[in-house]
């Protein structure tokens, strides 16, 4: 059972354990998956796949797709480290505590991350990089600013989960406002690889998406846990509530992923 903590509440031993598990997983596949296979999946499922569905982004399944994606990674990190309590931490970017420190995600925030846990010296290689480099890249704060608590509150106040046309143009949609105003913006705020298609090269990807998942869970607790839209199996081009999300296993539907108390983790 993983209790996902804020990076602000982590002990240095917990930070080290998390970084070590990621580095171990980078070189040691477990449960039939490798770290780089997560990067492949992110690239593949960002685009419309051969079934002409957007599974992971710019569509209603943005939240449940990433919930399963994170849950699998957390499970793989638990396996590789032999620690069943290992958890994905979340980065509340409205706060003052930064993940970019020497003892955690690395202190370099502009250019090549050439020192720390996620540098080539420590065994961290970049994979399928669209930037010609062998170093993880960052460019903090130069493409966008980070969202404020006011922006978060405003986004959380949208009461409609999502609605037609179910894409990135919907204005009155919690999913789309979160995806664009919070999710996209923080990808751009970090910059470098976090702004690219192959964003999971940067381990801070998981901390960011963990916070996005937490915000959805908070939203669900006030708006209802069973609130995913669209409900029926008749909406072309999008994942309905009871439809399997690829590439995940049969039964991995938005409905099956709605309640985190059944998924083996919680938020502290």
């Amino acid at each position, binding site marked *: 059972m993983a209790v996902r903590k804020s990076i602000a509440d982590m002990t240095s031993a917990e930070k080290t354990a998390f970084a070590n598990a990621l580095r171990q997983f980078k070189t040691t596949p477990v449960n039939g998956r490798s770290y780089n296979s997560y990067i492949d999946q992110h690239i593949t499922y960002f685009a419309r796949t051969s079934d002409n569905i957007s599974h992971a982004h710019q569509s209603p399944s943005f939240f449940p797709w990433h919930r399963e994606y994170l849950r699998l990674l957390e499970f793989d990190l638990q396996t590789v480290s032999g620690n069943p309590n290992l958890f994905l931490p979340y980065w509340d970017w409205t706060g003052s505590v930064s993940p970019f420190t020497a003892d955690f995600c690395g202190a370099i925030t502009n250019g090549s991350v050439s020192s720390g846990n996620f540098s080539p010296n420590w065994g961290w290689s970049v994979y399928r990089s669209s930037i010609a480099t062998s170093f993880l890249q960052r*460019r903090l704060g130069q493409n966008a600013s980070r969202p404020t608590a006011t922006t978060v509150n405003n986004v959380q106040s949208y009461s409609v989960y999502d609605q037609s046309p179910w894409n990135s143009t919907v204005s009155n949609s919690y999913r789309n406002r979160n995806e664009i105003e919070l999710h996209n913006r923080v990808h751009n705020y970090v910059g470098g690889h976090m702004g690219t298609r192959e964003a999971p090269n940067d381990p801070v990807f998981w901390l960011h998406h963990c916070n996005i998942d937490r915000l959805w869970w908070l939203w669900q607790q006030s708006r209802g846990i069973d609130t995913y839209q669209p409900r029926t199996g008749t909406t072309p081009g999008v994942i309905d509530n009871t439809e399997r999300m690829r590439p995940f296993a049969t039964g991995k539907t938005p409905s099956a992923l709605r309640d985190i108390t059944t998924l083996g983790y919680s938020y502290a």
Partner: protein
Amino acid sequence: MTDVKRRDVLRYSAAGAVTTATALYGVQALTGSEPAEGKPRRDPRDFDEDYRGKRIRGRHFGRGRDELHVNDRPLALTEVSTLFVPEDGSEPYVAVGYISAINHYDPVEIDDARTQDGLRRLGRRIVDRLNGLELSAEAGKGHFH
């Protein structure tokens, strides 16, 4: 045939149509750029400029088919219709933008009534984001949204 299966067939044929259209665009782009007289077709918005030490070249072949090169390396572009939410708090609006492997979460609005130099602004933004580095071959690989 169950509902789900029938729907999947529709989805697959939709995807097939997209592939065909993309292939056709490719042919049109080629013939459009090299007409019989041997003179390449030019759009007045095409550009070839140095920006922060990088050569950026943009050519306009019509929406969704424009081309961008940074130091002669191609960047695959994907058109996306999206809500733009300005950080300055001004009113959100829907427009068409380009994303790529490099600006994957940051669509740059392409030419419409509101803006006329979309491809150039995209080129400069890509150079900014590259932070002194070059595009890799991976950046030239496209995908469909």
